[in-house]
Structures are given as C-alpha cells and as structure tokens.
C-alpha cells in the first residue's frame, strides 16, 4: 500500500479527542490523518488545497451535526466526490438510512474496531479509484488520449450557454487530415493510427489556455474549442495546428503536398439562446469544406 506512493489522507471529524486520537494513531501505518473538531473546520479542510481522500465523520457534534456536514460536502462541486463514512454510536437503522440519504458511502459503529475500519476505508478508496478511472476513460479518446467526442459535446454545451450569458465570443477550429483514406490504404492502419496520435499531440500543443479544449471529433476529424476567443485568436491557433502538422513531415505520396497536411475551418460566434450549439459546428464544417475545395492544407475562416 505504501510502496512509493503517498499514504492516502483521511479527514477525521470528531469532537471527542479520544476518538480522533484512536483513529489517527490507530490507522497511522496506512493513512495520514487530519483532525477537525467541528463541522465548520471539516468543511474548510475538505476544500483545502490537498483534499482528503476520504472523510470519517462523527454524527453527533455540537453546532453543525454530521448529517449537515455531509449534506454540504455533497452540494459543493469540489468536495462532492470525496467518500464519507459515518462513525457513530447511534446504531439504529433510521440514523443509518438518514446518513446514506445525505450521501455517505458507509457506516462504522462506535466503539470502532481498527481492523474493520481499515478494511472498509481501503474498500472505499479502491472503489473511488475505479470510479475515477472509469469517469476519465469515458471522456477520453482511447487511441490518442485527448478528449473524446462525449467530453467535447459536454464542454460545447457548457461554453455555448456561457457565451450566450456573457455575450462572449466562442470559437471552434475543425481540423481534418487531408487524404487520410489514401494514407491508410497506402501505409496501413497502424501507420494511420500513429498519424492520428501525432495530430492529437500537435492539437494539444497548439492550444494555450487551460479552458481551451482539443478533442478528437471522430475518424480523422479533430476540434479545438476556444472560449473567449476572437476570430483572430482562433485563426492563429488553427494556423499553429496546420503548420505544426506540416512541420512533422510525415510522408504521404498520395497527397499533392507529399506530406500529411490538415485543412481547418474556423468559426467564431456569440451564442444566442435561440440557437443550438450545433450551429457552431455547422459553421466550422462549412468553412472546412471551403478549405478542402480551395486546395487543402489551409485555414478558412
């Protein structure tokens, strides 16, 4: 468990010092521990820079009780995914149901048995890791490792609404590898896959801001969603992508350019509440078509 990796961090919330001591010291071999003696401190520590991996939460506390702490943790986006285990002497089922209803993953009865507690914590940390990994996989393109279509669609929806609200410009670069079918036919699918990975890497390198999202849209089509970006800014990103891919110099003898190139359509809009976000994709697609018709290896906006 400790092999090279940092021990997971527990947040122990208990107003009884003996309990806090029992848990923090008794589990010390496997976990690091922070102790909060009341609900306010617990909420603060849960949202701190190093967030706990799991929270052991007492129910009966003066002031804010454990249920309320849990409810607030589950409402806030930055703390909602931290597993919470209630540690309580109230062994009745009503209390347990209430705890589960506010989002706890488990219950441990006082006085706690350290071996049982340790085993349950490990189980829930493992579940959390699996869940995180699945969530990540479901949003990532398996071949190239960049965002997939699902993640892009979510981000587009979100940015579209934000653009409509803030009256800010939203740009989309749609990039398509030129003559990719011929490339695959000539060099084989393995080379095709490698080519897609190279293009994905260039897409990633071409965007600058954390809010910019490069993604694989499907097949040999890639997108870069650029929030708060004007026509000029988006043009520069697209040119960076186009020249970056040409600079890779991947041979492609069935292309008039002799190397792998991309064509880009760049659309910039201020979203309107009456339109669908697909409007932006449609606009970029029209411009991409123009870039293809115009001789490829170019950016059209």
């Amino acid at each position, binding site marked *: 468990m400790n092999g090279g990796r940092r021990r997971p961090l527990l947040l122990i919330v208990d107003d*009884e*010092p003996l*309990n806090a*001591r029992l848990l923090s*010291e008794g589990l010390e071999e496997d976990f690091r*521990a922070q*102790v909060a003696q009341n609900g306010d401190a617990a909420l603060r520590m849960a949202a701190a820079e190093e967030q706990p991996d799991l929270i052991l939460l007492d129910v009966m506390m003066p002031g804010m009780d454990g249920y309320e702490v849990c409810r607030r943790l589950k409402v806030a986006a930055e703390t909602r995914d931290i597993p919470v285990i209630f540690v309580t*002497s109230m062994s009745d089922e009503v209390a347990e149901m209430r705890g589960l209803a506010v989002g706890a993953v488990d219950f441990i009865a006082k006085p706690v*048995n*350290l071996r049982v507690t340790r085993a349950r914590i490990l189980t829930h940390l493992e579940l959390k890791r699996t869940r995180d990994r699945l969530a990540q996989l479901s949003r990532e393109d398996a071949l190239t490792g960049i965002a997939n279509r699902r993640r892009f669609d979510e981000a587009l929806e979100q940015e579209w609404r934000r653009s409509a609200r803030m009256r800010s410009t939203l740009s989309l670069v749609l990039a398509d590898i030129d003559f990719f079918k011929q490339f695959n036919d000539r060099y084989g699918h393995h080379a095709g896959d490698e080519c897609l990975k190279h293009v994905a890497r260039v897409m990633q390198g071409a965007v600058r801001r954390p809010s910019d999202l490069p993604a694989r849209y499907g097949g040999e089509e890639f997108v870069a969603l650029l929030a708060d970006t004007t026509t000029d800014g988006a043009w520069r990103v697209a040119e960076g992508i186009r020249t970056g891919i040409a600079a890779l110099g991947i041979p492609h003898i069935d292309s008039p350019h002799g190397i792998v190139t991309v064509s880009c359509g760049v659309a910039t809009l201020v979203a309107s509440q009456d339109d669908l976000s697909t409007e932006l994709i449609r606009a970029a697609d029209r411009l991409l078509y123009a870039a293809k018709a115009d001789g490829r290896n170019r950016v059209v906006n």
Partner: protein
Amino acid sequence: MQTLSPLTRSLPSRMSGFELGAARERLGGNERLLVDLLERFVAEHGGAAAEVDALVAAVQPAHAVAALHRLKGAARIVGADTLSAAAQAAEEGLLHGDRGALAAFRSALADTLASIRTALCEGPPR
C-alpha cells in the same frame, strides 16, 4: 499531532471495571495506543464528575446529558465498561429528571480513574 511515546510499561492483563480483552481486540493489539488513550482519558475526562455536578446545579440538564453522553463514548473506547454503563444510566435518568443514578456514576468514575492510575503507575516494567 505528536506521535506515541515509546512503551515503557505494559498494562496488567486485567483492570477492575474494564473489558480489556475487547478493547485490545478493537485496537488490533496496539498496546501503546491503549496506554496513550488511557492517559488521555484521565486528562480529558478526569474532571467529568465535577463538570456534570456543576451543570446539574446550574439547572442545565441538557448540557449535563451531553457531557455524560460524551463520557460514555470515551469510556467505551478504552474498555471502561462499568463506567460506560453507569454514565448511560445517569444520562437516561437525567433525561427523565431523575438524579438518582448520579451517585453511582460518580463512584464508577472515581473507581475507573483509580484503576487507570494504578495500572499506569504500577504496571510491570517492560
């Protein structure tokens, strides 16, 4: 939080008023932690009888009940089952306005503290 001090004395196998076997089992046999918790119990809860008496005298029964409830939980951690039962009886009594069980609680607390002090001071050298 400071770490446990090295164990210089071991506890006796039995302590009057305690279910040490069950406590040891819950702590996974961590004797140093048990000693540490017993020391902390004395420091944290040694004055509980006076505290409860003061709260009862000040007609703050809800606070007295809460103090007894806390003590009951702390006693269970270290295996002080006799005290834990006495605290529970006193807590339930006070909830119904009955102070009758307070005397038994006071004496259980005194016995428990004495038992811990004896064990910590006179445990066989390690």
